Protein backbone atom coordinates (compact mmCIF):
# COMPACT_ATOMS: atom_id res chain seq x y z
CA UNK A 1 0.00 0.00 0.00
CA UNK A 2 1.17 3.44 -0.74
CA UNK A 3 0.12 7.02 -1.03
CA UNK A 4 0.68 9.72 -3.56
CA UNK A 5 2.20 13.04 -2.75
CA UNK A 6 5.71 11.91 -3.50
CA UNK A 7 8.39 14.27 -2.42
CA UNK A 8 10.26 14.81 -5.65
CA UNK A 9 13.54 16.59 -5.65
CA UNK A 10 13.61 19.96 -7.31
CA UNK A 11 15.57 19.87 -10.46
CA UNK A 12 18.58 22.03 -10.88
CA UNK A 13 18.32 24.07 -14.05
CA UNK A 14 21.67 22.82 -15.24
CA UNK A 15 20.99 19.13 -14.64
CA UNK A 16 19.48 18.35 -18.01
CA UNK A 17 21.81 20.58 -19.95
CA UNK A 18 24.71 18.46 -18.73
CA UNK A 19 23.30 15.27 -20.23
CA UNK A 20 24.48 13.94 -23.58
CA UNK A 21 21.83 15.28 -26.00
CA UNK A 22 22.00 12.29 -28.36
CA UNK A 23 21.60 9.75 -25.60
CA UNK A 24 18.86 11.82 -24.04
CA UNK A 25 16.99 11.93 -27.34
CA UNK A 26 17.29 8.14 -27.73
CA UNK A 27 16.09 7.65 -24.16
CA UNK A 28 13.07 9.87 -24.68
CA UNK A 29 12.29 8.26 -28.02
CA UNK A 30 12.24 4.85 -26.33
CA UNK A 31 9.77 6.08 -23.75
CA UNK A 32 7.66 7.72 -26.47
CA UNK A 33 7.52 4.38 -28.28
CA UNK A 34 6.07 2.88 -25.11
CA UNK A 35 9.12 0.70 -24.43
CA UNK A 36 10.32 0.14 -20.90
CA UNK A 37 13.69 1.30 -19.64
CA UNK A 38 15.78 -1.53 -18.20
CA UNK A 39 18.55 -1.25 -15.57
CA UNK A 40 21.56 -1.30 -17.88
CA UNK A 41 20.16 1.30 -20.28
CA UNK A 42 21.55 4.79 -20.33
CA UNK A 43 19.30 7.15 -18.38
CA UNK A 44 19.52 10.78 -17.29
CA UNK A 45 20.80 11.31 -13.75
CA UNK A 46 17.59 13.05 -12.82
CA UNK A 47 15.52 10.06 -13.95
CA UNK A 48 17.63 7.69 -11.89
CA UNK A 49 17.55 9.90 -8.83
CA UNK A 50 13.82 10.52 -8.88
CA UNK A 51 13.03 6.87 -9.45
CA UNK A 52 15.26 5.75 -6.60
CA UNK A 53 13.56 8.26 -4.36
CA UNK A 54 10.07 7.28 -5.44
CA UNK A 55 10.52 3.50 -5.34
CA UNK A 56 12.43 3.70 -2.08
CA UNK A 57 9.66 5.77 -0.47
CA UNK A 58 7.19 3.24 -1.78
CA UNK A 59 9.22 0.41 -0.21
CA UNK A 60 9.43 2.25 3.12
CA UNK A 61 5.67 2.81 3.04
CA UNK A 62 5.15 -0.93 2.77
CA UNK A 63 7.42 -1.90 5.61
CA UNK A 64 6.07 0.87 7.84
CA UNK A 65 2.58 0.15 6.52
CA UNK A 66 2.86 -3.31 8.05
CA UNK A 67 2.84 -1.73 11.52
CA UNK A 68 -0.60 -0.09 11.95
CA UNK A 69 -2.35 -3.28 10.86
CA UNK A 70 0.22 -5.37 12.68
CA UNK A 71 -1.19 -3.70 15.81
CA UNK A 72 -4.11 -6.15 15.50
CA UNK A 73 -2.30 -9.23 14.20
CA UNK A 74 -2.48 -11.03 17.55
CA UNK A 75 -6.10 -10.04 18.14
CA UNK A 76 -7.94 -10.77 14.89
CA UNK A 77 -11.32 -12.31 15.74
CA UNK A 78 -11.73 -15.88 14.53
CA UNK A 79 -9.65 -18.19 12.37
CA UNK A 80 -10.58 -16.69 9.05
CA UNK A 81 -9.59 -13.17 10.10
CA UNK A 82 -6.52 -14.34 11.96
CA UNK A 83 -5.08 -16.11 8.95
CA UNK A 84 -6.03 -13.34 6.56
CA UNK A 85 -4.47 -10.59 8.63
CA UNK A 86 -1.29 -12.59 9.12
CA UNK A 87 -1.10 -13.06 5.36
CA UNK A 88 -1.87 -9.44 4.66
CA UNK A 89 0.76 -8.00 6.97
CA UNK A 90 3.20 -10.54 5.54
CA UNK A 91 2.36 -9.31 2.05
CA UNK A 92 3.26 -5.76 3.04
CA UNK A 93 6.70 -6.94 4.13
CA UNK A 94 6.89 -8.89 0.87
CA UNK A 95 6.03 -5.77 -1.11
CA UNK A 96 8.80 -3.85 0.62
CA UNK A 97 11.20 -6.60 -0.41
CA UNK A 98 10.04 -6.40 -4.05
CA UNK A 99 10.24 -2.62 -4.17
CA UNK A 100 13.62 -2.36 -2.53
CA UNK A 101 14.85 -4.87 -5.12
CA UNK A 102 13.54 -2.66 -7.92
CA UNK A 103 15.22 0.40 -6.41
CA UNK A 104 18.45 -1.58 -5.99
CA UNK A 105 18.66 -2.12 -9.74
CA UNK A 106 19.19 1.65 -9.98
CA UNK A 107 22.27 1.40 -7.80
CA UNK A 108 21.25 2.01 -4.20
CA UNK A 109 21.89 -0.99 -1.92
CA UNK A 110 19.02 -2.14 0.26
CA UNK A 111 20.81 -1.73 3.57
CA UNK A 112 21.51 1.89 2.67
CA UNK A 113 17.80 2.45 2.09
CA UNK A 114 16.92 0.87 5.42
CA UNK A 115 19.49 3.02 7.14
CA UNK A 116 18.04 6.15 5.52
CA UNK A 117 14.57 5.15 6.66
CA UNK A 118 15.61 4.68 10.27
CA UNK A 119 17.69 7.85 10.41
CA UNK A 120 14.68 9.80 9.17
CA UNK A 121 16.41 10.84 5.96
CA UNK A 122 13.86 9.12 3.72
CA UNK A 123 10.13 9.60 3.90
CA UNK A 124 7.23 7.18 3.72
CA UNK A 125 3.52 7.54 3.29
CA UNK A 126 2.15 9.90 5.87
CA UNK A 127 -0.95 7.90 6.65
CA UNK A 128 0.97 5.26 8.57
CA UNK A 129 1.84 7.82 11.21
CA UNK A 130 -1.69 7.49 12.54
CA UNK A 131 -2.66 4.91 15.16
CA UNK A 132 -5.04 1.96 14.72
CA UNK A 133 -7.14 2.32 17.88
CA UNK A 134 -9.54 -0.53 17.32
CA UNK A 135 -10.03 -3.58 15.16
CA UNK A 136 -12.22 -1.43 12.92
CA UNK A 137 -9.28 0.88 12.19
CA UNK A 138 -7.35 -2.07 10.85
CA UNK A 139 -10.36 -2.92 8.66
CA UNK A 140 -10.48 0.65 7.35
CA UNK A 141 -6.80 0.44 6.46
CA UNK A 142 -7.14 -2.93 4.77
CA UNK A 143 -9.97 -1.74 2.62
CA UNK A 144 -9.63 1.97 1.96
CA UNK A 145 -5.98 2.76 2.44
CA UNK A 146 -5.21 -0.18 0.21
CA UNK A 147 -7.84 1.02 -2.25
CA UNK A 148 -6.10 4.39 -2.40
CA UNK A 149 -2.80 2.64 -2.88
CA UNK A 150 -4.17 0.59 -5.73
CA UNK A 151 -5.30 3.72 -7.57
CA UNK A 152 -1.77 4.99 -7.28
CA UNK A 153 -0.01 1.76 -8.05
CA UNK A 154 -2.09 0.94 -11.10
CA UNK A 155 -1.13 4.32 -12.52
CA UNK A 156 2.54 3.77 -11.70
CA UNK A 157 2.54 0.26 -13.16
CA UNK A 158 2.20 1.88 -16.58
CA UNK A 159 5.34 3.90 -15.96
CA UNK A 160 8.57 3.60 -17.91
CA UNK A 161 10.92 1.70 -15.61
CA UNK A 162 10.86 -2.06 -16.22
CA UNK A 163 11.82 -3.40 -12.76
CA UNK A 164 9.32 -1.09 -11.01
CA UNK A 165 6.55 -2.17 -13.40
CA UNK A 166 7.34 -5.84 -12.76
CA UNK A 167 7.25 -5.33 -9.01
CA UNK A 168 3.98 -3.42 -9.24
CA UNK A 169 2.40 -6.12 -11.37
CA UNK A 170 3.03 -8.64 -8.61
CA UNK A 171 1.97 -6.21 -5.92
CA UNK A 172 -1.29 -5.23 -7.60
CA UNK A 173 -2.25 -8.89 -7.94
CA UNK A 174 -1.80 -9.32 -4.18
CA UNK A 175 -3.57 -6.06 -3.41
CA UNK A 176 -6.75 -7.45 -4.89
CA UNK A 177 -6.84 -9.88 -1.96
CA UNK A 178 -6.19 -7.03 0.49
CA UNK A 179 -8.96 -4.93 -0.96
CA UNK A 180 -11.54 -7.72 -0.94
CA UNK A 181 -10.52 -8.86 2.51
CA UNK A 182 -10.74 -5.30 3.87
CA UNK A 183 -14.09 -4.69 2.24
CA UNK A 184 -15.37 -8.00 3.62
CA UNK A 185 -14.33 -6.96 7.14
CA UNK A 186 -15.93 -3.52 6.84
CA UNK A 187 -19.16 -4.99 5.44
CA UNK A 188 -19.36 -7.34 8.41
CA UNK A 189 -18.88 -4.55 10.91
CA UNK A 190 -21.14 -2.03 9.19
CA UNK A 191 -24.00 -4.50 8.81
CA UNK A 192 -23.38 -6.19 12.15
CA UNK A 193 -24.38 -5.47 15.72
CA UNK A 194 -24.80 -1.98 17.13
CA UNK A 195 -21.38 -2.17 18.78
CA UNK A 196 -19.75 -3.27 15.55
CA UNK A 197 -21.42 -0.51 13.56
CA UNK A 198 -20.36 2.15 16.02
CA UNK A 199 -16.84 0.82 16.04
CA UNK A 200 -16.72 1.06 12.26
CA UNK A 201 -18.22 4.54 12.11
CA UNK A 202 -15.72 5.81 14.68
CA UNK A 203 -12.89 4.43 12.55
CA UNK A 204 -14.22 6.18 9.44
CA UNK A 205 -14.41 9.41 11.41
CA UNK A 206 -10.81 9.06 12.54
CA UNK A 207 -9.35 8.03 9.23
CA UNK A 208 -11.11 10.28 6.76
CA UNK A 209 -8.78 13.26 7.14
CA UNK A 210 -5.60 11.17 6.78
CA UNK A 211 -7.25 9.45 3.81
CA UNK A 212 -7.78 12.78 2.05
CA UNK A 213 -4.18 13.71 2.82
CA UNK A 214 -3.06 10.39 1.44
CA UNK A 215 -2.90 11.51 -2.18
CA UNK A 216 -0.95 14.65 -1.33
CA UNK A 217 -1.73 18.30 -2.04
CA UNK A 218 -2.67 19.51 -5.51
CA UNK A 219 0.33 19.28 -7.77
CA UNK A 220 1.93 22.50 -8.74
CA UNK A 221 2.38 22.40 -12.46
CA UNK A 222 6.03 23.07 -13.05
CA UNK A 223 8.57 22.36 -15.73
CA UNK A 224 9.88 19.80 -13.35
CA UNK A 225 6.69 17.80 -13.06
CA UNK A 226 6.18 18.09 -16.81
CA UNK A 227 9.49 16.34 -17.37
CA UNK A 228 8.66 13.62 -14.86
CA UNK A 229 5.36 13.07 -16.62
CA UNK A 230 7.05 12.99 -20.03
CA UNK A 231 9.50 10.40 -18.74
CA UNK A 232 6.63 8.43 -17.25
CA UNK A 233 7.97 8.61 -13.73
CA UNK A 234 4.94 10.44 -12.43
CA UNK A 235 1.87 8.93 -14.04
CA UNK A 236 -1.09 10.79 -12.61
CA UNK A 237 -1.60 13.95 -10.64
CA UNK A 238 -2.47 13.80 -6.96
CA UNK A 239 -5.86 15.33 -7.71
CA UNK A 240 -6.63 12.77 -10.40
CA UNK A 241 -5.87 9.94 -8.00
CA UNK A 242 -7.97 11.50 -5.25
CA UNK A 243 -10.91 12.03 -7.59
CA UNK A 244 -10.69 8.48 -8.86
CA UNK A 245 -10.63 7.15 -5.32
CA UNK A 246 -13.64 9.22 -4.26
CA UNK A 247 -15.52 8.17 -7.35
CA UNK A 248 -14.94 4.49 -6.76
CA UNK A 249 -15.27 4.27 -2.99
CA UNK A 250 -17.52 6.99 -1.56
CA UNK A 251 -20.64 5.26 -2.94
CA UNK A 252 -19.43 1.96 -1.51
CA UNK A 253 -18.97 3.54 1.92
CA UNK A 254 -22.37 5.21 1.79
CA UNK A 255 -24.18 2.07 0.73
CA UNK A 256 -23.13 0.49 4.03
CA UNK A 257 -24.98 3.19 5.93
CA UNK A 258 -21.74 4.79 7.08
CA UNK A 259 -21.35 8.54 7.06
CA UNK A 260 -18.28 10.45 5.99
CA UNK A 261 -17.28 13.31 8.28
CA UNK A 262 -17.30 16.04 5.63
CA UNK A 263 -20.60 17.74 5.02
CA UNK A 264 -19.29 19.39 1.87
CA UNK A 265 -18.47 16.08 0.25
CA UNK A 266 -20.59 15.61 -2.86
CA UNK A 267 -20.26 14.87 -6.50
CA UNK A 268 -20.94 17.84 -8.72
CA UNK A 269 -23.07 16.18 -11.36
CA UNK A 270 -22.47 18.99 -13.83
CA UNK A 271 -18.68 18.77 -13.75
CA UNK A 272 -18.44 15.11 -12.71
CA UNK A 273 -15.89 15.94 -10.02
CA UNK A 274 -16.10 15.54 -6.28
CA UNK A 275 -16.22 18.59 -4.07
CA UNK A 276 -14.96 18.45 -0.51
CA UNK A 277 -13.66 20.59 2.32
CA UNK A 278 -10.06 21.45 1.63
CA UNK A 279 -7.90 19.16 3.80
CA UNK A 280 -5.71 20.78 6.43
CA UNK A 281 -2.40 20.85 4.61
CA UNK A 282 -0.64 22.43 7.54
CA UNK A 283 -1.31 19.32 9.55
CA UNK A 284 -0.15 17.20 6.61
CA UNK A 285 3.18 19.05 6.60
CA UNK A 286 3.50 18.81 10.35
CA UNK A 287 3.03 15.04 10.30
CA UNK A 288 5.34 14.50 7.33
CA UNK A 289 8.01 16.44 9.15
CA UNK A 290 7.88 14.12 12.13
CA UNK A 291 5.20 15.48 14.40
CA UNK A 292 2.43 12.95 13.84
CA UNK A 293 0.96 10.73 16.54
CA UNK A 294 3.05 7.68 15.63
CA UNK A 295 6.14 8.86 13.70
CA UNK A 296 8.40 8.18 16.64
CA UNK A 297 6.96 4.76 17.34
CA UNK A 298 7.11 3.62 13.71
CA UNK A 299 10.78 4.41 13.39
CA UNK A 300 11.56 3.06 16.85
CA UNK A 301 10.02 -0.27 15.90
CA UNK A 302 12.02 -0.48 12.68
CA UNK A 303 15.14 0.41 14.56
CA UNK A 304 14.42 -2.22 17.18
CA UNK A 305 13.91 -4.86 14.47
CA UNK A 306 17.19 -3.82 12.92
CA UNK A 307 19.12 -3.88 16.17
CA UNK A 308 17.65 -7.14 17.43
CA UNK A 309 18.41 -8.75 14.08
CA UNK A 310 21.96 -7.52 13.87
CA UNK A 311 23.62 -10.54 15.49
CA UNK A 312 21.70 -12.81 13.11
CA UNK A 313 22.86 -10.96 10.04
CA UNK A 314 26.41 -10.70 11.27
CA UNK A 315 26.52 -14.42 12.01
CA UNK A 316 25.29 -15.28 8.54
CA UNK A 317 27.45 -12.90 6.64
CA UNK A 318 30.34 -14.66 4.94
CA UNK A 319 33.49 -12.54 5.03
CA UNK A 320 33.94 -12.93 1.30
CA UNK A 321 30.31 -12.05 0.54
CA UNK A 322 30.02 -9.72 -2.40
CA UNK A 323 26.92 -7.66 -2.90
CA UNK A 324 25.87 -7.58 -6.53
CA UNK A 325 23.17 -5.28 -7.85
CA UNK A 326 20.12 -7.32 -8.88
CA UNK A 327 19.65 -7.81 -12.61
CA UNK A 328 15.98 -7.07 -13.04
Amino acid at each position, binding site marked *: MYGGGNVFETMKATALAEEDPIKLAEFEARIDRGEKIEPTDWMPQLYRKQLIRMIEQHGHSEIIGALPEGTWITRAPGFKRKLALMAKVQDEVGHAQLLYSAAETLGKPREQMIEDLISGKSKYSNIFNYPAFTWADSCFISWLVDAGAIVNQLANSKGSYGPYC*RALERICAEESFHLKYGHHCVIHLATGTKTQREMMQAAVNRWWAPMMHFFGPSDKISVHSEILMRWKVKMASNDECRQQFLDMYVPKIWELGLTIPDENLKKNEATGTWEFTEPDWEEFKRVINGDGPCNKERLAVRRMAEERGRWVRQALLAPQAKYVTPLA
Partner: protein
Amino acid sequence: MLKSLDPRVNRLALPEEFEAPMASKEQLDQFETYQAFVQTKEGKPFEHAGIVHAPNEEMAFLFAKEQFSRRGMFCNALCVVKTELIQVTEFTDNGQDVYDTLEGNYSGETSESFEVFHLLKRGKQHKYIGNVQAKDFEDGLLAAKETYSRDKPVLNVWITKSENILMSDEEDVDIWNTLKEKKYRDAIDYRAADKIKAFKEEQAQG
Protein backbone atom coordinates in the same frame (compact mmCIF):
# COMPACT_ATOMS: atom_id res chain seq x y z
CA MET B 1 8.89 3.47 27.94
CA LEU B 2 7.22 3.96 24.59
CA LYS B 3 3.52 3.23 24.89
CA SER B 4 1.94 1.57 21.92
CA LEU B 5 -1.48 0.30 20.91
CA ASP B 6 0.32 -2.80 19.66
CA PRO B 7 0.79 -5.25 22.57
CA ARG B 8 3.76 -6.76 20.73
CA VAL B 9 5.53 -3.42 20.84
CA ASN B 10 4.75 -2.90 24.51
CA ARG B 11 6.32 -6.25 25.34
CA LEU B 12 9.58 -5.04 23.83
CA ALA B 13 9.75 -2.13 26.27
CA LEU B 14 11.28 0.32 23.82
CA PRO B 15 12.64 3.57 25.22
CA GLU B 16 10.65 6.75 24.75
CA GLU B 17 13.73 8.33 23.20
CA PHE B 18 16.84 6.57 21.96
CA GLU B 19 19.94 7.99 23.55
CA ALA B 20 22.09 7.82 20.47
CA PRO B 21 21.44 7.44 16.77
CA MET B 22 21.56 3.86 15.54
CA ALA B 23 25.00 2.51 14.88
CA SER B 24 25.60 2.90 11.18
CA LYS B 25 24.98 -0.23 9.17
CA GLU B 26 28.36 -1.43 8.14
CA GLN B 27 29.18 -1.88 4.52
CA LEU B 28 29.27 -5.60 5.19
CA ASP B 29 25.73 -5.78 6.46
CA GLN B 30 24.56 -6.64 2.99
CA PHE B 31 24.10 -10.19 1.74
CA GLU B 32 24.67 -11.51 -1.71
CA THR B 33 21.76 -11.37 -4.10
CA TYR B 34 20.21 -14.38 -5.80
CA GLN B 35 17.92 -14.50 -8.79
CA ALA B 36 14.89 -16.73 -8.33
CA PHE B 37 13.02 -18.56 -11.08
CA VAL B 38 9.68 -20.27 -10.70
CA GLN B 39 8.06 -23.04 -12.73
CA THR B 40 4.33 -22.97 -12.07
CA LYS B 41 3.50 -26.20 -13.89
CA GLU B 42 5.39 -29.14 -15.22
CA GLY B 43 6.46 -28.49 -18.79
CA LYS B 44 6.17 -24.72 -18.55
CA PRO B 45 9.39 -22.73 -18.73
CA PHE B 46 10.98 -21.35 -15.58
CA GLU B 47 10.30 -17.65 -15.33
CA HIS B 48 12.27 -15.02 -13.46
CA ALA B 49 10.32 -14.08 -10.34
CA GLY B 50 12.66 -11.69 -8.58
CA ILE B 51 15.60 -11.58 -6.23
CA VAL B 52 16.32 -12.40 -2.64
CA HIS B 53 19.12 -11.32 -0.36
CA ALA B 54 20.67 -14.33 1.31
CA PRO B 55 23.97 -15.44 2.80
CA ASN B 56 24.12 -18.65 0.77
CA GLU B 57 22.16 -20.56 -1.82
CA GLU B 58 20.36 -22.90 0.59
CA MET B 59 18.90 -19.94 2.41
CA ALA B 60 18.21 -18.16 -0.85
CA PHE B 61 16.08 -21.16 -1.74
CA LEU B 62 14.22 -21.10 1.60
CA PHE B 63 13.52 -17.40 1.19
CA ALA B 64 12.59 -17.48 -2.50
CA LYS B 65 10.09 -20.25 -1.85
CA GLU B 66 8.02 -18.08 0.46
CA GLN B 67 8.58 -14.77 -1.30
CA PHE B 68 7.80 -16.00 -4.81
CA SER B 69 5.64 -19.10 -4.53
CA ARG B 70 3.51 -18.64 -1.43
CA ARG B 71 0.33 -18.04 -3.40
CA GLY B 72 -1.29 -19.15 -6.60
CA MET B 73 -2.84 -22.44 -7.48
CA PHE B 74 0.27 -24.33 -8.46
CA CYS B 75 4.02 -24.40 -8.25
CA ASN B 76 6.09 -27.23 -9.61
CA ALA B 77 9.68 -26.18 -9.07
CA LEU B 78 11.91 -23.31 -8.02
CA CYS B 79 15.55 -22.53 -8.58
CA VAL B 80 17.98 -19.87 -7.44
CA VAL B 81 21.28 -18.63 -8.91
CA LYS B 82 23.73 -16.22 -7.37
CA THR B 83 23.53 -12.96 -9.33
CA GLU B 84 27.29 -12.71 -9.53
CA LEU B 85 27.42 -15.98 -11.47
CA ILE B 86 25.12 -14.87 -14.27
CA GLN B 87 26.56 -13.34 -17.42
CA VAL B 88 24.39 -10.78 -19.13
CA THR B 89 24.38 -9.58 -22.74
CA GLU B 90 23.55 -6.11 -23.91
CA PHE B 91 19.96 -4.94 -24.00
CA THR B 92 18.56 -4.23 -27.44
CA ASP B 93 15.45 -2.29 -28.38
CA ASN B 94 12.20 -4.13 -28.96
CA GLY B 95 12.40 -5.68 -32.41
CA GLN B 96 16.18 -6.05 -32.50
CA ASP B 97 17.75 -9.45 -31.83
CA VAL B 98 20.71 -9.31 -29.47
CA TYR B 99 22.12 -12.51 -30.99
CA ASP B 100 22.57 -10.61 -34.25
CA THR B 101 25.12 -8.41 -32.51
CA LEU B 102 27.28 -11.43 -31.59
CA GLU B 103 30.21 -12.20 -33.81
CA GLY B 104 32.11 -15.46 -34.25
CA ASN B 105 31.13 -19.10 -34.42
CA TYR B 106 30.35 -21.74 -31.85
CA SER B 107 33.42 -23.90 -31.18
CA GLY B 108 31.52 -27.15 -30.99
CA GLU B 109 33.24 -27.96 -27.70
CA THR B 110 31.15 -29.47 -24.94
CA SER B 111 33.36 -29.17 -21.89
CA GLU B 112 30.91 -27.13 -19.84
CA SER B 113 27.15 -27.02 -19.46
CA PHE B 114 25.24 -23.70 -19.45
CA GLU B 115 21.64 -22.65 -18.80
CA VAL B 116 20.15 -19.91 -20.96
CA PHE B 117 17.35 -17.39 -20.28
CA HIS B 118 15.73 -15.08 -22.83
CA LEU B 119 13.90 -11.78 -22.57
CA LEU B 120 11.48 -11.17 -25.42
CA LYS B 121 9.96 -7.88 -24.39
CA ARG B 122 11.16 -5.00 -22.26
CA GLY B 123 9.28 -4.87 -18.97
CA LYS B 124 8.57 -8.62 -19.05
CA GLN B 125 10.35 -11.49 -17.31
CA HIS B 126 13.31 -13.54 -18.50
CA LYS B 127 12.28 -17.10 -19.33
CA TYR B 128 14.32 -20.27 -19.39
CA ILE B 129 14.99 -21.48 -22.89
CA GLY B 130 17.35 -24.41 -22.46
CA ASN B 131 20.74 -25.90 -21.87
CA VAL B 132 23.82 -25.74 -24.13
CA GLN B 133 27.28 -27.28 -24.00
CA ALA B 134 30.24 -25.04 -24.78
CA LYS B 135 33.73 -24.13 -23.65
CA ASP B 136 32.98 -20.78 -21.98
CA PHE B 137 30.32 -18.09 -21.60
CA GLU B 138 30.89 -16.41 -24.98
CA ASP B 139 30.96 -19.76 -26.65
CA GLY B 140 27.78 -20.66 -24.78
CA LEU B 141 26.03 -17.64 -26.24
CA LEU B 142 27.15 -18.63 -29.73
CA ALA B 143 25.92 -22.15 -29.10
CA ALA B 144 22.59 -20.74 -27.99
CA LYS B 145 22.48 -18.58 -31.12
CA GLU B 146 22.86 -21.71 -33.24
CA THR B 147 20.56 -23.88 -31.15
CA TYR B 148 17.42 -21.85 -30.64
CA SER B 149 15.22 -20.81 -33.50
CA ARG B 150 14.13 -17.29 -32.77
CA ASP B 151 10.69 -16.48 -34.12
CA LYS B 152 10.72 -13.35 -32.03
CA PRO B 153 13.82 -11.24 -31.47
CA VAL B 154 15.62 -11.84 -28.18
CA LEU B 155 16.43 -8.57 -26.42
CA ASN B 156 18.60 -9.79 -23.61
CA VAL B 157 20.19 -13.10 -22.61
CA TRP B 158 21.24 -14.39 -19.20
CA ILE B 159 23.58 -17.35 -19.15
CA THR B 160 25.04 -19.26 -16.23
CA LYS B 161 26.89 -22.51 -15.65
CA SER B 162 24.48 -25.34 -14.90
CA GLU B 163 26.37 -26.15 -11.72
CA ASN B 164 25.47 -22.69 -10.32
CA ILE B 165 21.79 -23.47 -10.16
CA LEU B 166 20.18 -24.76 -7.00
CA MET B 167 16.98 -26.49 -8.00
CA SER B 168 14.22 -27.92 -5.86
CA ASP B 169 14.36 -31.72 -5.70
CA GLU B 170 11.70 -33.51 -7.66
CA GLU B 171 10.68 -35.46 -4.59
CA ASP B 172 10.09 -32.19 -2.74
CA VAL B 173 7.40 -30.96 -5.09
CA ASP B 174 4.94 -31.64 -2.26
CA ILE B 175 6.12 -28.51 -0.43
CA TRP B 176 3.63 -26.71 -2.70
CA ASN B 177 0.85 -29.26 -2.22
CA THR B 178 -1.38 -27.14 -0.02
CA LEU B 179 -1.12 -23.94 -2.09
CA LYS B 180 -4.62 -24.26 -3.42
CA GLU B 181 -5.96 -24.89 0.08
CA LYS B 182 -4.84 -21.46 1.21
CA LYS B 183 -7.98 -19.74 0.07
CA TYR B 184 -7.62 -17.07 2.73
CA ARG B 185 -4.87 -15.56 0.57
CA ASP B 186 -7.18 -15.25 -2.38
CA ALA B 187 -9.61 -12.42 -3.23
CA ILE B 188 -12.22 -14.95 -4.35
CA ASP B 189 -12.71 -16.09 -0.77
CA TYR B 190 -14.12 -12.69 0.27
CA ARG B 191 -17.42 -12.35 -1.50
CA ALA B 192 -20.06 -10.51 0.50
CA ALA B 193 -22.51 -9.10 -2.04
CA ASP B 194 -25.34 -11.02 -0.35
CA LYS B 195 -24.68 -9.31 2.92
CA ILE B 196 -24.81 -5.85 1.32
CA LYS B 197 -28.01 -6.75 -0.50
CA ALA B 198 -29.68 -8.00 2.66
CA PHE B 199 -28.56 -4.89 4.53
CA LYS B 200 -29.98 -2.57 1.87
CA GLU B 201 -33.29 -4.41 1.85
CA GLU B 202 -33.47 -4.15 5.60
CA GLN B 203 -32.74 -0.42 5.41
CA ALA B 204 -35.40 0.06 2.75
CA GLN B 205 -37.99 -1.60 4.94
CA GLY B 206 -36.99 0.77 7.54
